[in-house]
């Protein structure tokens, strides 16, 4: 790391208010204070629809905060920067590009010469095990393979900060565990800081150094838990460890309450 010791991500009292189509105001997040150190893997859990994704869009620069500050590597976020990678919940591969061309897209957008972009893309495709699928189109791949393309397309840009918005939620359970392991492997080689949003507590504990529990919407940070499980981890085996279960219980006590509040609110809405 350089002499610059500012944290990878810093949110200072950040909030985001949207105007709803009916003209009202909807506060997605408020008073967010969160620090992500360099190379740290932070998972964010919270009840569904509480505003976890909004946090990521603020850090990515896709949205501006309505209040407070968002700093990436010590500098306030102004639009989409070149330090950030983002893996979306839905498929975001370009369907008209081949697998190779999809992975080349990032470097090409950033002005890397074609030959070098191709070399880097092929390297990352090899790392996610898709070398044989270079010339396929996304629709010819399985859901898990498409996610791998998305990972390769993100990692090929060497992001210092990796934002992931429930990236594996559309996959089946087995593929999910496999992808989680692969993500850890890929990440360990890069030293990037990760913010991983999920509603799956198990997934968050298995992956992260730090689990952030958000409150029911409008979301703010409720509690931050340190996960002291040793690395390297294997997602399938780590969740059977006694310490894992202990942590799980501890966090669930905090998260469960928020989930209950959300549920009661939506029940009140229906009534």
């Amino acid at each position, binding site marked *: 790391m350089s002499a610059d010791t500012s944290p990878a991500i810093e949110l200072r009292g950040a909030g985001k208010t949207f105007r709803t189509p009916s003209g009202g105001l909807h506060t997605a997040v408020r008073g967010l204070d969160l620090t992500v150190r360099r190379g740290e893997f932070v998972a964010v859990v919270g009840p569904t629809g509480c505003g976890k994704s909004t946090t990521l869009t603020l850090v*990515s620069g*896709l949205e501006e905060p309505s209040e407070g500050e968002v700093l990436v590597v010590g500098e306030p976020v102004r639009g*989409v920067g*070149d330090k*950030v*990678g*983002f893996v*979306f919940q*839905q*498929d*975001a591969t*370009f*369907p*008209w*590009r*081949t697998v190779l061309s999809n992975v080349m*897209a*990032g470097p090409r*957008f*950033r002005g890397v010469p074609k030959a070098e972009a191709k070399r880097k893309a092929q390297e990352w495709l090899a790392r996610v095990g898709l070398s044989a699928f270079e010339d396929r*189109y*996304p*629709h010819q791949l399985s859901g898990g393979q498409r996610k791998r393309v998305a990972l390769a*397309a*993100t990692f090929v*840009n060497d992001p210092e900060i990796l934002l992931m918005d429930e990236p594996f939620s559309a996959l089946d359970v087995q593929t999910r565990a496999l992808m989680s392991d692969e993500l850890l492997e890929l990440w360990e080689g890069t030293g990037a800081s990760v913010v991983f949003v999920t509603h799956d507590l198990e997934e968050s504990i298995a992956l992260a150094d730090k689990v952030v529990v958000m409150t029911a919407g409008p979301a703010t940070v409720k509690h931050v838990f340190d996960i002291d499980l040793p690395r390297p981890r294997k997602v399938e085996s780590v969740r059977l460890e006694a310490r894992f279960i202990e942590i799980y219980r501890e966090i669930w006590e905090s998260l469960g309450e928020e989930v209950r509040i959300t549920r009661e609110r939506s029940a009140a809405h229906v009534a």
Partner: protein
Amino acid sequence: MSHEVLSTPVVDTATTPPDRAHSRARAARRRRIVVAAARVLLLVGVLGLWEVLSRAKVIDPFNFSMPSKIWDQIWTWVTHGTALGSLGEQIWYTLYEALLGWVVGVAAGVVFGIALGRITLLADVLGPYIKVLNSIPRIVLAPIFVIWFGLGPASKVASAVVLVFFPVFFNAFQGAREVDRNLVANARILGASDRRVTLQVVIPSATSWIFTSLHVSFGFALIGAIVGEYIGATKGIGLLVAQSQGTFNAAGVYAAMVILAVVALVAEGLLTFAERRIFRWKPANSDS
């Protein structure tokens, strides 16, 4: 998973005998033959009935002509040329006007559609005017164009352009508006500038919208050219129709129609071919 295992003894797909696949292929082939034969039979039936009714004077042969006469007329045009010159020249003239009008109309429609789809301010300002222009029945512009641009091809190209522009424009506009927001966000995160987003995300994802309109709009281009020629021209299939009509030659009108249909079908075929090449990235089941 486990219930699949349970059901294996019932449906044993792994050991399907090869002759079952064989008989399925044979059934499919037989169906194709039946369909093709039925089509031919239908055509022969309709044409035959027309011929017979016309010869028996059940329908007026002067107004309705008959297939044999229409064929004779086409043959005469092919071998001896029309009153206006060779048939090929007339077809080429019409095709040239339609193609030119189509290309100009499509280009303008795509550019305006994408621009208005991407730039909200432009869409807000121009939106009502485009609606007004679109509500004018554009075929009435054809006589005006003949006045403005004369009897030459320019007036036909102009009427083809106004017919083609609007469907292409609305499709391109819609296509640009309905681009997957995720794809745009992803492209921006990956480092794409606004220009790149337009060129490499918005336009590719709007192409399937645009192509739908291209099929319809080539028909419109032909209509524009023909109507223009019909109103006033020196050459072209539309003029052939007008002239045949003027000399009470019903067979000539029908013959020109047949020629037009063939031209339109060939153009449609070429377009479908191009579409297949361009949309290789699409799942096969979505292009019907």
